[in-house]
């Protein structure tokens, strides 16, 4: 057991930090420090391409597909330095963390050649179409239909919470391709180009006034017959495999942005004197401890090579970070007092911390609500009986 990095790894850290900081001080100064998902989307697509050109887009991928074959420790280091340099989140995070790894694991050779280099180069931006208005926590209740017709897939239905769909090029969609099938059976995983008359993307205004998520409507939308990943009817298996990729090295980068958020709360508490309040101090310390433990939980998860047993750190990670961030949002508002409830200008737009307070209510819902997480932990982690399925 060892936490420190080797001298060679520290050199790599310096290389990453130098390059990232130079970009954020120079050609991409204008996007430094952005914390929302989609602000300055066009410039951030250019950033994706810039990363690709310099080989920093998907460093953990094989060289053959635009990666660097980076070791785990190197990926950890890059993720940390990326966030430390104030680089905004990747607008193609679905492509590099979900679509790419899924294609790598389950795609055909032709699909790998078609998609992986373009994802790595920032030329193809992906979003995901899983949830539906009646298939939220119960993902297997998908109703969007897909059928093969004249050598093409034809898709009809509606997806929801398709974040980034309005700036993406492709969407992967879980469709019901077997008439009359129920639950996880009869689903197929399709990749579809978004720019076509059969697909209509509409923003959903969130409680913070922003619109980063979308509804995506499919009306005789089309894609080529070979757009499926895996076989017909394998959709559930692929989707579940894909969800497992969600807990990767990127969590460490995410934690560095949490670091920035907690530092903002600490700075606010110092500035307005809340930092003298013993109860606020206790809560700040709890937040600090929680954040540190997330890092070491992630490092345990990443260091774990024994996949024969349940990885408790991985299984509990989602609810841990989501709850931490929601609690930080509440602490931020208690630090700010009523000043946190007033917008700066005429628009319904709040500064970082009040916005965190509002947005973090989504964290404990998307990607599996806290309630679903507890079911998963109890059933997979502790071997307790599964929740019975109703027949409504």
């Amino acid at each position, binding site marked *: 057991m060892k936490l420190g990095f080797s001298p060679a790894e520290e050199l790599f850290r310096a290389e990453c930090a130098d390059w990232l900081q130079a970009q954020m001080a120079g050609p991409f100064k204008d996007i430094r420090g952005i914390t929302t998902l989609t602000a300055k989307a066009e410039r951030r697509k250019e950033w994706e391409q810039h990363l690709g050109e310099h080989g920093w887009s998907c460093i953990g991928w094989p060289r053959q597909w635009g990666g660097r074959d980076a070791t785990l420790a190197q990926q950890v280091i890059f993720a940390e330095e990326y966030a430390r340099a104030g680089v905004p989140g990747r607008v193609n995070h679905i492509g590099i963390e979900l679509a790419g790894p899924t294609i790598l694991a389950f795609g055909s050779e032709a699909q790998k050649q078609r998609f992986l280099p373009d994802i790595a180069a920032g030329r193809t931006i992906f979003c995901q179409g899983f949830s539906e208005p009646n298939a939220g926590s119960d993902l297997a209740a998908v109703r969007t239909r897909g059928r093969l017709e004249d050598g093409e897939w034809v898709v009809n239905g509606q997806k929801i919470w398709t974040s980034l769909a309005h700036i993406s090029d492709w969407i992967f969609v879980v469709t019901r391709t077997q008439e009359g099938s129920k639950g996880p059976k009869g689903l197929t995983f399709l990749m579809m180009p978004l720019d076509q008359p059969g697909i209509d993307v509409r923003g959903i205004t969130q409680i913070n006034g922003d619109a980063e998520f979308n509804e995506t409507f499919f009306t005789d939308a089309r894609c080529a017959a070979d757009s499926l990943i895996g076989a017909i009817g394998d959709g559930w298996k692929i989707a579940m495999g894909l969800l497992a990729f969600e807990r990767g090295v990127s969590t460490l980068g995410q934690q560095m942005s949490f670091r920035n958020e907690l530092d903002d709360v*600490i700075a606010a508490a110092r500035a307005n004197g809340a930092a003298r309040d013993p109860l606020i101090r206790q809560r700040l310390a709890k937040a600090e*401890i929680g954040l540190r*433990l997330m890092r*070491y939980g992630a*490092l345990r998860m990443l260091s774990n090579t024994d996949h024969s047993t349940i990885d408790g750190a991985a299984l509990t990670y989602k609810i841990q970070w989501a709850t931490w961030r929601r609690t930080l949002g509440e602490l931020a508002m208690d630090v700010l007092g009523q000043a946190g409830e007033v917008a700066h200008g005429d628009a319904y737009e709040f500064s970082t911390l009040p916005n965190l307070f509002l947005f973090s209510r989504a964290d404990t819902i998307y990607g599996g609500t806290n309630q679903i997480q507890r079911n998963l932990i109890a059933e997979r982690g502790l071997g*307790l*009986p599964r929740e019975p399925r109703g027949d409504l």
Partner: protein
Amino acid sequence: MEFAFTDEQRMIGETVRGFFAEHATSARTRQAMAGNGIDAALWAAFAGELGLAGIALPEEHGGAGLGMVELAQVAEAAGAHVAALPLLGHAMVGQAIAKGGSDDQKAEWVPRIAAGEVIATTAWQADIAVGNGRLSGTFSFLPHGAVADLMLVYGGDNAWIVDLKGQGVAITPHVTMDQTRPFATVVLTAAPAEAIDNGDAAIPAALAAGWICLAAEALGGAQAALDRTVAYARERVQFGRTIGSFQAYKHRLADMMIEIEQARSAVYWAACAVDENSEDTAIALHAAKSFAADTYFMCAGNMIQLHGGIGFTWDHDAHLFFKRARSIQTMLGDGAYHREAVARMIVGAAA
């Protein structure tokens, strides 16, 4: 960076878990509770046959030469069975002398501590008067104080070893809520005391070992509380179904696991930080002690609640966990103390 046990550490873990599972039985622990709070035969086997009393002490003085990670593994396994052993004082005093003692002090004391020949204890905070190599003062809440041979005392940058069998020592044992680690009050009246050569090195080493020991015990205890409650949830039937199939019940168990996984990260982060002399050592220790203790108390409380009436009985082991958890929460600084220490690091002093 490799935040996973090495093969050697995995073997140590298996050995200690097996040892405590076999020997630290409920019956034996209860026998120790009725006596002086130490299972003497368990201690003899632990120190003698397994040679674990010196796990983190230097090899040249009879120890195994390993570090805080391995000490944590041992304490975790002991905590899982609420074993009645004087591990805490032993770890603290052993590290204090090993890190801060003169060569003579090390040669004199460390081999005896590593062999488990002496039982050691220490006080958290005390007002002491020093003069002519003699100490006076009242020391409260000394774990296993009534049976200890040796006491570590510290104040400011200085630390001393006091022979509790010597002159000027009056010991009052107390009936204590956690009977596996009963307290005593020690009053010293001009008792002979040996100053540890380098108090600056001894005190942090003692505190680090103490906090890690407690945090690791708490981790082991919390995990055992969860495991035992899960086993009960799968066999107990009410309303025609196992109670572990009720969502309200499952979710409470899930919440225990969520906290335990974080406590596990905390304990081994702190242990590695000390072993690697990391700049994060202080924050890691405060995080581990406060978080693991709170986790244990939450899990042990849930253990009683989720067992229903049987969990409230003396015969069931739930109260052993619950009382140890409560004891760990306040031992060597309560949660508020450790969080305020963290707050000072991140936001500065309060005023």
